[in-house]
């Protein structure tokens, strides 16, 4: 299954999915000059029924919310199958042991719950389970090109590097999607509640990668801090992971992780800190198209 097939799946329930992928236009179309309070006052009955139907009844969810949640669901499947295949791989038995293996299992179970939760919210509008067969975590797209991570399931270092890239991508994806969920408080809050869990996951994976909490950080590619510093020099494997830390589309709205200007304020100058410190204090959102392109490296 490739990205286009997945979008086609979404398209079956939403013919306008391509237009909805343009997030900025949607955001301003729905929210510019249109305060939420006014909306509530204007259409109390419609809003009320929407909240009641937020869980388990997709009929109460707007197409835009269904699209964002299906997008999130795809990413959760990606993460779930990644950890599931990794933990089942004999090639990682010796390299991923003890607390590290237990932690990866904890994360796997969180992703499994996120999949179940999103499916319950989407109901019949949820995309089909792509199954493990849809993914190729070597990045070879099922043999169509040279692998990016040939030893992902035999080398714990590679496995954790890919885990970091996937989780950091997930954090950026949920952050980018949140404004598109503002019309439904229940769904928005749930998405934020998943977003921060992904942030905790990647903090831990980064901590494992540098050798545990008592290891001093070094090269951001091999011994990263638990947060993103600058653009982490492109991340664990820059040729394949630079996009995870780079700008989205449009870059003015989705800058790279090295960004130090927030809400028009240069926080580096304001707080008299280094560019890396200024960038570390803020994570950046990413648009759906860029996230799908990154995820596409692991989809056949």
């Amino acid at each position, binding site marked *: 299954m490739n990205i286009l097939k997945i979008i086609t799946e979404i398209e079956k329930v939403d013919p306008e999915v391509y237009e909805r992928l343009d997030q900025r236009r949607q955001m301003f179309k729905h929210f510019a000059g249109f305060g*939420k309070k006014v909306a509530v006052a204007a259409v109390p009955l419609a809003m009320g029924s929407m909240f009641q139907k937020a869980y388990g009844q997709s009929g109460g969810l707007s197409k835009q919310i269904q699209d964002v949640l299906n997008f999130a669901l795809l990413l959760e499947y990606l993460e779930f199958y990644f950890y599931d295949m990794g933990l089942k791989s004999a090639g990682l038995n010796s390299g991923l042991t003890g607390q590290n293996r237990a932690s990866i299992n904890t994360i796997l179970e*969180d992703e499994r719950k996120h999949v179940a939760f999103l499916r319950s919210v989407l109901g019949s509008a949820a995309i089909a389970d792509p199954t493990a067969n849809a993914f190729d975590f070597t990045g070879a797209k099922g043999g169509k090109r040279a692998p990016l991570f040939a030893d992902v399931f035999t080398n714990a270092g590679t496995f954790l590097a890919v885990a970091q890239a996937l989780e950091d991508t997930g954090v950026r994806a949920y952050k980018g999607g949140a404004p598109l969920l503002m019309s439904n408080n229940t769904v928005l809050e749930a998405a934020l509640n998943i977003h*921060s869990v992904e942030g905790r996951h990647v*903090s831990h994976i980064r901590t494992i990668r540098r050798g545990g909490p008592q290891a001093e950080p070094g090269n951001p590619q091999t011994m990263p801090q638990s947060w993103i510093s600058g653009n982490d020099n492109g991340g664990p494997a820059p040729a394949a992971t630079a996009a995870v830390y780079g700008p989205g589309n449009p870059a003015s709205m989705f800058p790279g992780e090295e960004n130090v200007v927030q809400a028009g*304020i240069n926080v580096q100058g304001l*707080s008299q800190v280094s560019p890396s410190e200024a960038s570390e204090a803020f994570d950046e959102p990413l648009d759906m198209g860029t996230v799908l392109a990154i995820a596409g490296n692991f989809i056949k």
Partner: protein
Amino acid sequence: MSKITHKTPEAENAQEEVMVPLQRRSFLRYSGAGLALTGLVLAGCDDDRLNDIFKKVDRRSGLVNVGSGDFGILNYAYALEQLEAAYYAKVLQNQYYLNATKAERIILKDLADHERIHAQFLKAAIKAAGGMPIKDLTPDFSSVDFANRASVLGTAKAFEDLGVSAYNGAGKLISNPAHLTIAGKIVSVEARHAALIRDLIQFGTFVGPDVVDPSNGLEKSKSPAEVAAVANTFLVEGSKIDVSNLPKD
């Protein structure tokens, strides 16, 4: 019309509350009371603006009101970031930090920088958008033993987890998507902090059942009232926050 009905409680409050000099009551007296208020409302003055004009510390309760609307949410975040920034600044000057491992010192220094950046940024952003930041809050860390690792890291864990749950609970109360994005940019960094502090205390506890609901894998939110009750135990009288004017849903 919804704006006018929304302002009615403000007019009532003006009659009831005891204000410090130059606060709402005197402003109303000098400018023609209800007429001025009506004028502001008809001019489309929003909640936040009105609240800023009548910025107040309630003299009876001694509480710092963070305000209403998006500026209220931003001030609420600013209050929490002030608390965190003050905490780590004090950690860095005391005995545990000075004797900590190098890795721990690097982490705590980073956290001090990040939280100071968050606080200074929020203050500047509120001003830049035309709002009025709350005053500098005076913390009360008398319950913390700054020479003791367990006390310092345990309190750090409490602050970081509280911050994440606060942003998660406040997101849905925000009206402007740009403000939601700002909150989102900060909360995931707080989540990274929280996970690392937990891992320092006990490796592998980055998503403990006290913060992430084991039934669905979602982090637990806290309402502003729940958060303020905890935050206020670390603030002196006169610096405790009142979040009662924030949006409720």
